[in-house]
């Protein structure tokens, strides 16, 4: 086994990793939509989806089927190349952007050491930015291609908006780069290892060597710019329902629309992961490394959760629910116990656990904002981007570099 890996590992392992990642991400996207609808519903004091499956848990499945089965009309006078190319591009780029994100520290399975992520590029951050930069074209082309003034306006808006906010996005990261002195996301995370736990993360910046400096400003700027990059509320002007019907994807239906949809959520995930890595210590646990007891936190969370789901399941209205929910609860519980018993697995799971926990929190924040905030007006958007965000992030760069210089003296 191990020698096979040693021989063909470079070929097999990435393929496996890619398959796993795509599966995970797509599922995540699906249930992200579910979560979003649920959360917003509750914010608006509604129930949200609850018909398909218990608590509407099968809703994403139904949506998927609907997407596949729906008719796909093509409006007349479209620019075919652009019209067809745009959705593919969007989805492709979104998925590619995940390829350079490390979800955890390097792991060793069967004596084969590999990084927890697909590619380990030493300029992964730049690659990520490059990919996000190209992300504009999907929307712009869609807007241009589908021969529709709403779409065109949406495309225009999005391209303008993305160019404007990309500057702020990039500049807000420079502080972190200055501290890390490296483009590799993995090293950026490793720089944040310290004996103060979450105090060592870039957002606070009390690292062991004292090389860090709080990036709270950069953090805020990055988050705002990231929301704008992903065209989410309150920056969702390209697809502003109330103004442009559905913006750039007005003319798209069924799978093409689905691609935009998935692409958007995937890029959300990617950006959240990046956010986590840059400012919240990636896969690092918020507790100091010395507190080994905290390694049991996953099981401590999973077991009660499982038990609660189980309990909730057996008194659910529908038969279907009585069958599925307890099973799910059982799976959770068993998983928790398993982690408790096999400590090596537990160790392996630590990184990803914290990583996804943080990413989940960020995603929840996304949804929360969508439920809360109104949309910007276009001129407000531009003014905010150029006259506030950009100067502030530049100021952050200056401040950080000044501090670092002063430390050197």
């Amino acid at each position: 086994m191990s020698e096979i890996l040693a021989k063909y590992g470079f070929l097999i392992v990435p393929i496996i990793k890619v398959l796993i990642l795509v599966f995970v991400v797509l599922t995540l996207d699906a249930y992200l939509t579910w979560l979003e609808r649920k959360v917003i519903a509750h914010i608006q004091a509604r129930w949200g989806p609850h018909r398909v499956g218990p608590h509407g848990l099968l809703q994403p499945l139904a949506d998927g089927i609907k997407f596949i089965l729906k008719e796909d009309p093509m409006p007349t006078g479209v620019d075919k190349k652009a019209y067809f190319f745009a959705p593919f591009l969007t989805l492709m780029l979104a998925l590619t952007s995940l390829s350079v994100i490390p979800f955890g520290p390097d792991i060793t399975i069967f004596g084969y050491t590999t990084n927890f992520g697909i590619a380990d590029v030493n300029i992964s951050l730049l690659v990520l930015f490059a990919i996000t930069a190209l992300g504009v074209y999907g929307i712009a082309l869609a807007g241009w291609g589908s021969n529709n003034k709403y779409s065109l306006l949406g495309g225009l808006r999005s391209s303008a908006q993305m160019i404007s906010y990309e500057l702020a996005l990039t500049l807000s990261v420079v502080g972190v780069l200055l501290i890390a002195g490296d483009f590799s996301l993995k090293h950026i995370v490793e720089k944040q290892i310290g004996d103060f736990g979450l105090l060592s993360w870039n957002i606070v910046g009390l690292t062991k060597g004292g090389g860090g400096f709080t990036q709270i400003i950069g953090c805020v700027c990055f988050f705002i710019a990231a929301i704008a990059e992903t065209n989410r509320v309150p920056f969702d002007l390209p697809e502003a329902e109330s103004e442009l019907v559905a913006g750039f994807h007005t003319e798209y239906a069924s799978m093409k629309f689905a691609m935009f949809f998935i692409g958007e959520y995937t890029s959300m995930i990617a950006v959240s992961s990046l956010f986590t890595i840059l400012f919240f210590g990636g896969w690092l646990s918020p507790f100091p490394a010395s507190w080994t007891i905290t390694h049991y936190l996953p099981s401590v969370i999973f077991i009660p959760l499982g038990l609660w789901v189980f309990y909730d399941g057996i008194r659910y209205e529908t038969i279907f629910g009585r069958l599925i929910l307890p099973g799910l609860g059982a799976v959770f519980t068993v998983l928790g116990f398993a982690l408790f018993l096999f400590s090596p697995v537990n160790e392996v799971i630590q990184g990803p656990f914290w990583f996804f926990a943080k990413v989940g929190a960020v995603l929840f924040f996304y949804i929360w904002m969508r439920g809360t905030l109104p949309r910007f007006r276009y001129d407000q958007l531009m003014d905010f981007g150029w006259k506030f965000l950009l100067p502030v992030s530049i100021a952050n760069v200056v401040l950080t570099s000044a501090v670092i210089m002063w430390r050197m003296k």
Partner: protein
Amino acid sequence: MISGVLVIFFLLAGLALLGAVSLIWQSHPIHSALSLILVMVSLAGLYLLMGAEFVAAVQIIVYGGAVMVLFIFVIMLLNAGVEERTNISKMATFGGVPLAMALGLIIAAAIARSSGQMPAPAASGAMSSTRELSKLLFSEFVYPFELTSFLILVAILGAIVLAQREN
């Protein structure tokens, strides 16, 4: 025997040439723009192949992410249509394309002939870690660097002045 690297090179070079040709071929500016983006991306790939990661990234971020977006933005803004193939300029109509091709050929021929003097390529990747590059940029080329910053400032001002409607 053809190594994997060579295969990748030919792949990317083919893509680049394809993009360049289609830039000429396409009659609609936005398609030309897309072809140009293709060229740029494949060039970035070639840079990676040569181990110039940083340049590759910058190539995509700046060219792909900013400059070409600007082009597409302008095309969309002006709602440019299919270009009209007027032939007012005799010079360009008759002499243009052959001369241009001849120019390209002269350069290519010169390179092909002078390949004897060409130094053997150094081990890829070894030459330029991003760190070295930045050291060079901020030590030896610091004045040009500052100058470029001024240039950009001026460009911003100029663009604003040009773009605002006179009132």
